[in-house]
């Protein structure tokens, strides 16, 4: 082998080394988010008719807020909420028209964190106090939250609340098994991650007397959520934003 050939071959080898990471990058990007490789992808389906037929029922909200020590604030602008009721107009303002069924249009819609596939709150969090877990839950680490409220601005669904005051003073009977938060921390629904590890359904799903809330794994084609999504037409909130919410509504 002469010197010229040696230099050529070395150059080719170096090129191959440089191309390898680039190839890996493309290969990784081709695995779809819902592949069977992703073990679990939690999602929720809410049946609005069933929910609205129950009238003023707020059992799910009470169950959630009790289980997670969510305080009841005096001032509405300091309100803390993990799951709450919103008007159809506010929830689906881009999918509303004047000839909608009256019950649907005037009835409240249960809303919570959508545990988006592409969560804007996670993108803007400077401390990674909020992040998306492998199972799709947009989780919060209250130890790490610095209270900058970028996530509140980032979330297009208003799913996040800020503790303007010490929440403990507004809790009548704190639930011992779940921590409270402190002043200066953002909080939101965690899809009952602490209950899921104990093989329990989320508190709201378990509490709903009408069976309007269905929770399950999108990665499993036979799961109840997949069955419902297949058999019924569902809406998602603000789908045009590209956040890919994982709370689906049957209207």
């Amino acid at each position, binding site marked *: 082998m002469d010197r010229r050939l040696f230099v050529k071959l070395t150059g080719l080898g170096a090129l191959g080394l440089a191309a390898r990471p680039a190839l890996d990058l493309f290969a990784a990007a081709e695995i779809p988010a819902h592949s069977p490789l992703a073990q679990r992808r939690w999602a929720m389906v809410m049946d609005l008719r069933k929910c609205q037929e129950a009238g003023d029922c707020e059992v799910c909200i009470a169950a959630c807020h009790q289980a997670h020590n969510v305080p009841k604030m005096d001032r509405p602008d300091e309100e803390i909420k993990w799951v709450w009721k919103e008007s159809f107009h506010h929830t689906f303002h881009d999918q509303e028209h004047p000839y909608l069924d009256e019950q649907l249009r005037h009835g409240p819609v249960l809303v919570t964190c959508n545990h988006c596939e592409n969560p804007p709150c996670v993108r803007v969090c400077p401390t990674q106090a909020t992040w998306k877990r492998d199972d799709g839950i947009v*989780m919060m*680490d209250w130890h790490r939250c610095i209270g900058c409220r970028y996530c509140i601005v980032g979330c297009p669904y208003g799913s996040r609340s800020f503790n303007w005051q010490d929440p403990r003073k507004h809790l009548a009977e*704190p639930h*011992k098994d779940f921590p*409270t*938060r*402190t002043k200066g921390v953002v909080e939101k629904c965690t899809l009952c991650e602490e209950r899921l*590890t104990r093989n329990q359904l989320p508190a709201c799903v378990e509490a709903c007397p009408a069976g309007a809330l269905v929770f399950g794994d999108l990665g499993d084609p036979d799961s109840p959520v997949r069955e419902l999504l297949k058999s019924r037409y569902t809406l998602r909130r603000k789908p045009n934003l590209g956040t890919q919410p994982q709370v689906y509504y049957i209207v």
Partner: protein
Amino acid sequence: MPPDFRKIVFGLVIFLILVTLPLWTNLLRGTAPLEDPEISTRDVPGKDRCVREAEYMKANHMDLLNEWRETVVRDGERGFVTVDGRHFDRSLDRTCMDCHNKQEVFCDRCHNALAVSPYCWDCHIGARETKDGSTALR
């Protein structure tokens, strides 16, 4: 001898008195006696020993708790097996405070004496017992 010698010495004396003032006040007032923490272990069936030996816990419980915090919150892994094969939950409220159920004497006594203020109890309810045996907020 510099012309301001007396003034300088006077200033130095004042300075020394001010700097050593904490020592004098402590000598005069006396320091609070450092009480040993009360281990205050409640008998819980199946939990006869701590997750680690006492020597380790005395020196490193804060590291263990930090590690548990990261593992539970960030990785979602709650279950935990000790070196000798016992199963626990990584949980301050459910595991630690379940046995060591008197926070005032087990945690606070030492922390207060050493002027350490861990922020665990800002959020975690802890186990401050009230008269009726239920837990109460600070």
